[in-house]
């Protein structure tokens, strides 16, 4: 019999309803897997008691035939989500020990639908990073190993989520994506992940990084699992002023794999210099897979693509510098108060001790570009270029229904390989950031393996609110690619 942790979330759901196993069995198997994989450092907090409690409730509901959509499904929750009574630190020293007296809307919706929580998942500090190396809780190790058994990063910022899903420690996980933080780690670990349209998932109770870009989304073993989780996570929330008041589609029902009559755009500007040939080859293969599923492939142009990253690295730090002003040592988290120091001394000492170097770097950039005399030259200029990037997409969508691109410019890299060069690290998100700036739904699905045997992701970008189209194209790739590779359990 297949180990319970090897089942997809969809199979777990169906197996629970068929009484093949109990929610308790499922929770216990995952709790054991989490304990056995501590070397991966995927969790910041483990909450086996919560997973088991939810399983008990699920078994009771199942027995009465009153199962909810996620009854008995054990999940991991990214540390960026406020979870009531459980440390929610955004992987930062400044929030260590913070136990919210409230629940984020998205995690609350998952639990209300019957899911249990195995623990909080590690991440880059305040979601600022592409490798999970900026976490105050230490680097997460990718379950996949490089050549010569090299330790690799799991991507970031949702690196604990990607590692935990790939290592089969959780049935699925929440992630958040500001400029690629769901898609790039999904690609680095051979799993699927979708960032929905900006406004689909409530941001209430998610630690804010860059509010005009932040969006929650699921990370899971396959496209169906993403569709199942996304349905529970989405929905209008009056507590988030940017939440969209729209009905939530049945995303799972959209998965037919049939793309007849659909046009898939290939953006010529995504052919970036210095990208490994294997990434280009996979991209072409992806186009063939979608053509085989019935789609027509068309060439499109997104002329402002190369300006997306610099635009992002003005807007995101600017918003972050404002959002992170709240960490002042007064209401929650760390306080460093020099003896006989003033209030300002306390602020400065607290923030200097509490924020890691990447977070400080971004706060300083953000403060600089928003400071008197520079606002127009940097921030306003970036918001104008952002409008042009969005216009590029809207014009492209007159010619196509979805866009196909690589997710990341490389496979997972070694731990420490990019830490000394911020710009090289930022380039990891070159293919992900444009869709974020335009608020578009986008997902990564595994497309194949690199020459070194590491997973590579393909990205589908869709029109605003067309998660169904994105998921279905992802599903077509998943079926054609037949990606079954998985990391060998060395931990």
């Amino acid at each position: 019999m297949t180990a319970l942790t090897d089942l997809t979330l969809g199979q777990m759901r169906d197996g629970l309803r068929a009484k093949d196993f109990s929610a308790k069995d499922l929770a216990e198997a995952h709790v054991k897997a989490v304990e056995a994989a501590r070397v991966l450092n995927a969790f910041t907090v483990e909450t086996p008691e919560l997973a088991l409690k939810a399983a008990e409730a699920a078994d009771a509901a199942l027995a009465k035939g009153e199962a909810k959509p996620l009854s008995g499904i054990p999940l991991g929750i990214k540390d960026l989500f406020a979870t009531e009574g459980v440390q929610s630190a955004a992987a930062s020293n400044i929030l260590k020990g913070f136990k919210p007296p409230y629940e984020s809307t998205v995690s609350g919706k998952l639990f209300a639908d019957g899911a249990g929580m195995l623990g909080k998942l590690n991440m880059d500090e305040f979601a600022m990073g592409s490798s999970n190396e900026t976490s105050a809780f230490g680097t997460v190790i990718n379950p996949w190993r490089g050549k010569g058994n090299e330790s690799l990063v799991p991507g970031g910022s949702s690196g604990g989520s990607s590692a935990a899903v790939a290592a089969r420690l959780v049935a699925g996980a929440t992630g958040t994506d500001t400029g690629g933080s769901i898609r790039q780690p999904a690609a680095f670990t051979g799993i699927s992940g979708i960032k929905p349209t900006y406004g689909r998932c409530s941001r209430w109770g998610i630690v804010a990084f860059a509010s005009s870009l932040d969006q929650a989304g699921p990370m899971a073993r396959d496209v169906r699992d993403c569709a199942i989780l996304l349905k529970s996570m989405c929905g209008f929330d009056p507590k988030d002023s940017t939440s969209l008041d729209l009905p939530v589609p049945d995303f799972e029902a959209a998965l037919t794999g049939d793309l007849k009559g659909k046009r898939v755009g290939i953006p010529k500007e995504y052919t970036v210099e210095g990208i490994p040939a294997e990434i280009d080859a996979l991209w072409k293969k992806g186009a063939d897979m979608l053509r085989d599923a019935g789609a027509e492939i068309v060439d499109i142009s997104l002329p402002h693509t190369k300006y997306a990253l610099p635009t992002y690295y003005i807007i995101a730090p600017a918003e972050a510098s404002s959002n992170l002003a709240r960490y002042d040592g007064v209401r929650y988290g760390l306080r460093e108060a020099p003896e006989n120091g003033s209030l300002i001394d306390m602020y400065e000492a607290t923030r200097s001790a509490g924020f890691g170097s990447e977070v400080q770097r971004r706060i300083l950039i953000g403060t600089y570009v928003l400071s008197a005399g520079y606002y127009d030259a940097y921030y306003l200029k970036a918001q104008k270029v952002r409008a042009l990037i969005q216009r590029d997409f809207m014009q492209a969508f007159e010619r196509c229904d979805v866009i196909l691109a690589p997710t990341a410019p490389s496979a997972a890299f070694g731990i420490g390989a990019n830490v000394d060069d911020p710009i090289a690290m930022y380039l990891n998100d070159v293919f992900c950031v444009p869709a974020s700036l335009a608020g578009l739904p986008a997902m990564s699905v595994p497309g194949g393996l690199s020459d070194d045997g590491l997973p590579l992701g393909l990205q589908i970008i869709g029109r605003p609110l067309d998660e169904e189209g994105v998921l279905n194209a992802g599903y077509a790739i998943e079926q054609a690619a037949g990606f079954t590779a998985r990391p060998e359990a060395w931990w």
Partner: protein
Amino acid sequence: MSVDAATVKRVAHLARIKIDDDRSAVMAEELSKILGWVEMLGEVNTDGVEPLAAVIPNTLRWREDVVTDGGIQDKVLQNAPKAEYGFFAVPKVIE
């Protein structure tokens, strides 16, 4: 745009982050590199382009002007590093 250590110190003070001299020199170099890189946006003609305010068109909603929350002083204070007499406590700010 090249940023010097004095500018980094000024910006760090605006951001309320204490930064020592060694680190401000390193940061000056890093910030100069990043700001030099983002200056590529100067190439883009944005004449007549409105800055993007909302990615997905959405109007701010009205709500009833009523109190919907409150009476949870204990919860509000429970994570405070220092709370006294039902308030957040900070170093003295008036002489």
